[in-house]
């Protein structure tokens, strides 16, 4: 499935390893059940990621967050929004690696995904075909600012108002 | 695609809502029409299956939304009248505002039983 981030479609460096297969390669993406063994057996330079359902609880992931580079969360349907909260919890828990959405998300959700802490999306071919890169880029540009403080990189509307007030205060 | 075969009630017409206008439209021999009097009536299963194929293709093309078959009775003048009251309202317009909807535009829909 095509992989996309804020810069556009790109090659996927991660190698999915099914249960029972040897976890070899520079960057391996494994299930939660395999994760402890793969971490224990990893070579020095090997990067390890975990792919989880959106029903996984944060405490199940917490012990590993300092040792992995990617959490890929499944979207069974684009309207199933559980992963938005899970991604937020990962970021609030201090996870610094990449967070990936896997499944039929649509370009119109890209801003929300990024605001909640996702870095990249892996979408089915059919969606990538209907919604080319330009639509994802345009979706990202469709919000100048949002009302929620702490979501996304830019200043929220509340913070902008505060800055404006401070500016006016300084000017007067 | 294997689907559970649903019994088609006959005779039947195919209706939908136009994607851009929202207006109720009917499949006719010449494509979609806003006039229920022009609706193509499927009187046997073969014709009804053909209507289902039309519906699937139209939905896939995206020209209409909410396309589905409706079983009807034929009035004396040939007008197909849905057997279910929901679709009778859907075709005619609000029962409380006879000045609105298709009942206002088409004389053959007024004074229905």
């Amino acid at each position, binding site marked *: 499935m095509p992989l996309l981030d804020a810069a556009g479609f790109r090659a996927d460096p991660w190698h999915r390893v099914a249960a029972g297969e040897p976890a070899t390669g520079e960057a391996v993406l494994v299930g939660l059940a395999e994760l402890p063994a793969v971490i224990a057996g990893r070579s020095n330079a090997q990067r390890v990621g975990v792919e989880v359902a959106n029903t996984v609880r944060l405490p199940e992931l917490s012990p590993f967050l300092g040792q992995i580079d990617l959490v890929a969360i499944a979207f069974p349907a*684009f*309207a*199933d*929004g*559980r992963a*938005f*909260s*899970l991604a*937020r*919890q990962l970021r*609030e828990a201090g996870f610094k690696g990449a967070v990936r959405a896997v499944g039929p998300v*649509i370009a*119109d*959700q890209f*801003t*929300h*995904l990024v605001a*909640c802490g996702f870095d990249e999306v892996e979408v089915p071919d059919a969606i990538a075909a*209907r*919604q080319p890169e330009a*639509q994802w880029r*345009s979706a990202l540009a*469709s*919000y*100048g*600012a*949002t*009302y*929620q*403080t*702490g*979501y*996304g990189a830019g200043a929220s*509307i*509340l913070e*902008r*108002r*505060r800055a404006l007030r401070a500016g006016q205060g300084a000017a007067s | 695609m294997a689907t559970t075969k649903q019994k088609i009630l006959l005779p039947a017409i195919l209706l939908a*809502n136009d*994607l*851009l*206008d*929202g*207006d*109720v439209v009917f499949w006719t021999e010449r494509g979609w029409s806003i006039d229920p009097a022009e609706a193509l009536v499927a009187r046997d299963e073969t014709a009804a299956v053909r209507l289902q194929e039309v519906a699937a293709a139209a*939905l896939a093309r*995206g020209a209409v*939304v*909410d396309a589905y078959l409706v079983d009807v009775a034929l009035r004396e003048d040939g007008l197909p009248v849905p057997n279910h*009251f*929901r679709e009778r*309202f*859907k075709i005619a317009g*609000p*029962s*409380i*505002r006879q000045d*609105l*909807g*298709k009942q206002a535009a088409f004389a053959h829909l007024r004074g229905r039983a």
Partner: protein
Amino acid sequence: MYRYDQFDEAFVRERVAQFRGQVARRIDGSLTEDEFKPLRLKNGVYLQLHAYMLRIAIPYGTLSSVQLRQLALIGERYDRGYGHFTTRQNLQFNWPKLRDIPDILDLLADVGMHCIQTSGNCIRNTTADHFAGAAADEVEDPRPTAELIRQWSTMHPEFDYLPRKFKIAVTGAPRDRAAIRAHDIGIQVVRHPVSGEVGYRLFVGGGLGRTPMIGKLVRDFLPKAHLLAYLQSLMRVYNLEGRRDNKYKARVKILVHEIGIEEFRGRVEAEFAALDPAAIAADPEEVARIEAYFAPPAFVTLPETSQRLVADRARDPAFDRWVETNTFPHREPGYAAVTVSLKPVGGVPGDATSDQMRAVADLADAHSFGEIRVSHHQNLILPHVRQDALHGLWTGLVAAGLAEANAGLITDIIACPGLDYCALATARSIPIAQAISRRFASAERQREIGELGIKISGCINACGHHHVGHIGILGLEKSGQESYQVTLGGDATENAAIGQLLGPGIAATEVPDAIERLVAVYLAHRREGETFAEAVRRLGIEPFKAGFLATPAESANAAA
């Protein structure tokens, strides 16, 4: 009233452009109907039976005269010259074309309005007491809180794809006129009994629909500054834990019911403890900025009672009756809040023509500081009218066909659009309301019966709030016919209760007689000054059930 600043304005314009783009991408095939549907719903666009429907947000039911005139214009230019005010204090147009909706959204943005989150599985338009800022019993005006929630909940990145819709209502008074316990979250502004600090009491898990439930207390006192952090915690628990396997079990009320309020509260508090409320909250300057918009208008000092009003009432009995039913005590001496009834006898509950909207806008400019409210009873409110001016106002309302003296009476019926418009409906609602309204048309009879709320829904989704009607009517399909179930004893106020079913469904034509029989039981048994709802609470359902099930002849004998 709140007014958009440059940031609100830019945000809403961006959303209009976004929706315009989404419509174009639906047409060119970039978006499938399945993908487009949630996007259009979040912009208030439904596909109904005959056409699209556009639901416009009226945040906490507050409108300016300028906004109401714009709605009138949209109704004429893009619809059929009328609109429908809803039980969620919104306005619906029944005939817009999808191709026109981006232009309509631009016209709305011109007056600081939008359709964002009036549908879809997200946090819906926040509702509030329609007498906010006018009611004498208020601890505080709930609208600054509701506006803060509006902004915080608008396109919230984390909570835009919830298991199901989510409704929040706020009241600033102990008398609940916002039906807060029929909402997913109900918020009551309260004063702390010990410290005197103003904060919030929160209820969760109320809701009507297939499984009606009364909201349960989740937090007895929440400091104001913690509101957004607490809401974020609660929404996160719901977003993660709410059921997604069955849409009929996906509302938060089911989650609360299944895990219990104690467990639910514990999970919310655990999330809350992990958050930094200060990082999420609006800063005090922002709160003050919003509050300033809701500062009371420039009331003049007046005597408690207007002698002119007394004289006008004595001289004009029709006016006197209207004042008795359609005015509400105001916190300011010499003022009144006025209910503009959208329930003319035999009319469509909640409908107003564009001309009527303009008439109300003009009267609001003349008599109510240009401010209008929409009540969840589907009426309009002029919140701040000088008692001296009531006769002039009434004269204007009479001319516009808006002076029905029936607020709170048996013909002030709430009804959803039902199968006359709605694609989800199983039966019609409006003709039932009309038939009851005609049956009880006599003004004397209505006054004799007194306060009685009939609420009608055309399907189990309960947009007509039938579960909390003193008398509730639910339209269903039975054997290919429309059939109506009648419930009794519902209450949407601080005494919130779900009505009980009286018996098997009846045909549309039988409904007015059945209502007559229930009214007859009440009139036969009531005590001095006892309202219908109070009588039902005292007597229980049984005598009414007997009356409901009786044949008309039996019931006549019983009353004799």
